[in-house]
């Protein structure tokens, strides 16, 4: 057996072409679930980060806390969540959100704090209210950092969602885990390859966003002063 035959086995298997175990279905499961986790993490982390970054209160606590969460093992959180909260996608969502939120929080805080103080003062000086400054000055200026944080969180979520197949989550991790359990290496390798492609694709997506979707003036080539 070699790579080519493994992959041709994987991609030509009838189960992988249609039905609940098909590649299209698994990829969409993986993307939907990761997207859901990221959305919840962003809803939690970004407003809090904007507030903390703007007021400057609790920055040290947040940074230390987020650094500490890096030590948490994903597999441990996922298995514990399922044992405590019961089998199901909701149980798995909790650790995923918990792992994605800290990098987003830190990125938002750092982005807002990185706003040029002169620009903030000028914005106040021309009569903008605090919410207006936050919304019209700090948020655009935090956008590149925020995007970098979102990228870290996405990478983390895609990887953790793969691991979470162990506790029964769908998505591409299913191939990896099921292939290992049934000793069908072609399935495992095919799944791993798709996960890698998804992760690289996400990186490219964020690289393109950073280049084209940021507010003009905040794009990478102008950022370096």
């Amino acid at each position: 057996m070699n790579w080519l035959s493994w992959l041709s086995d994987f991609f030509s298997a009838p189960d992988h072409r249609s039905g609940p175990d098909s590649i299209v279905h698994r990829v969409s499961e993986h993307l939907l679930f990761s997207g859901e986790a990221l959305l919840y993490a962003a809803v939690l982390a970004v407003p809090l980060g904007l507030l903390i970054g703007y007021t400057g209160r609790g920055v040290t606590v947040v940074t230390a806390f987020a650094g500490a969460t890096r030590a948490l093992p994903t597999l441990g959180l996922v298995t514990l969540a399922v044992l405590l909260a019961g089998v199901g996608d909701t149980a798995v969502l909790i650790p995923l959100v918990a792992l994605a939120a800290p990098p987003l929080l830190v990125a938002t805080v750092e982005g807002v704090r990185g706003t040029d103080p002169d620009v903030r003062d000028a914005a106040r000086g021309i009569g903008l209210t605090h919410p207006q400054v936050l919304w019209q000055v700090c948020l655009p200026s935090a956008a590149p950092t925020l995007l970098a944080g979102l990228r870290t969180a996405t990478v983390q979520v895609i990887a953790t969602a793969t691991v979470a197949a162990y506790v029964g989550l769908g998505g591409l991790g299913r191939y990896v885990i099921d292939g290992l359990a049934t000793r069908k290496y072609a399935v495992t390798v095919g799944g791993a390859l798709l996960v890698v492609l998804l992760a690289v694709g996400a990186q490219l997506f964020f690289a393109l966003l950073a280049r084209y979707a940021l507010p003009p003036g905040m794009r990478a080539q102008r950022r370096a002063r």
Partner: protein
Amino acid sequence: MDDEPIVRWYWIGDHLGYLGNLLADHAVIALLPVLIGLLLAVPLGLTCTRFPRLYQPLSAVFNIVYALPSLAVFVVLIPYTGLATQATVMIPLTFYALAVLLPTTVDGLRAVPDPVRQAATAMGYGPWHRLTSVELPAAVPYLIAGLRVAAVSSISLASVGALVGRGGLGYLFVDGFQRTFPTPIVAGIALIAVLALAVDLLLVGARRLLAPWAVREKGAGS
């Protein structure tokens, strides 16, 4: 799971030796790659500062490597390194560590101000002597900042290796899940956190010792 408490303390008491063995195994699997990563990052970083054109593509490659989900990489290595071997887990961890350490090494080496470099040359330091007594010491705070990030991530990532049969403390997660017995999982999470904290404190101590001038952390944001 109805009346199962989250932690049964007696189980931990009964399995202290077992937990100690897993902890030792985990420390080797997680930290040896960081050490190898450091040994690779320094010469590679030096090459990159000497040939700056090399750094951009190399750091792009390592950015992508760092983003690869660990489980997928472990699994892809199995035909070459075997199931449940240390190498299957340690080779990817080495690359993850290198991906963190290379940028911090380059930042550290670039942080030496040019006048300092020139002063060293003017005082008669050769390239080797200047490297060991001026440039590398100046990079130490950066290197340690990078090592802190790399070590903590490596310690938590190594547990995923349990899914391919070799994850040190990660085995407790698989074991606890299969028996619907949360105690080993909680013990595993706690021991991993303790190991990460201990290594982090050790590195902070090393920085105090090796670079007492660097009171505030520099380099890799942590």
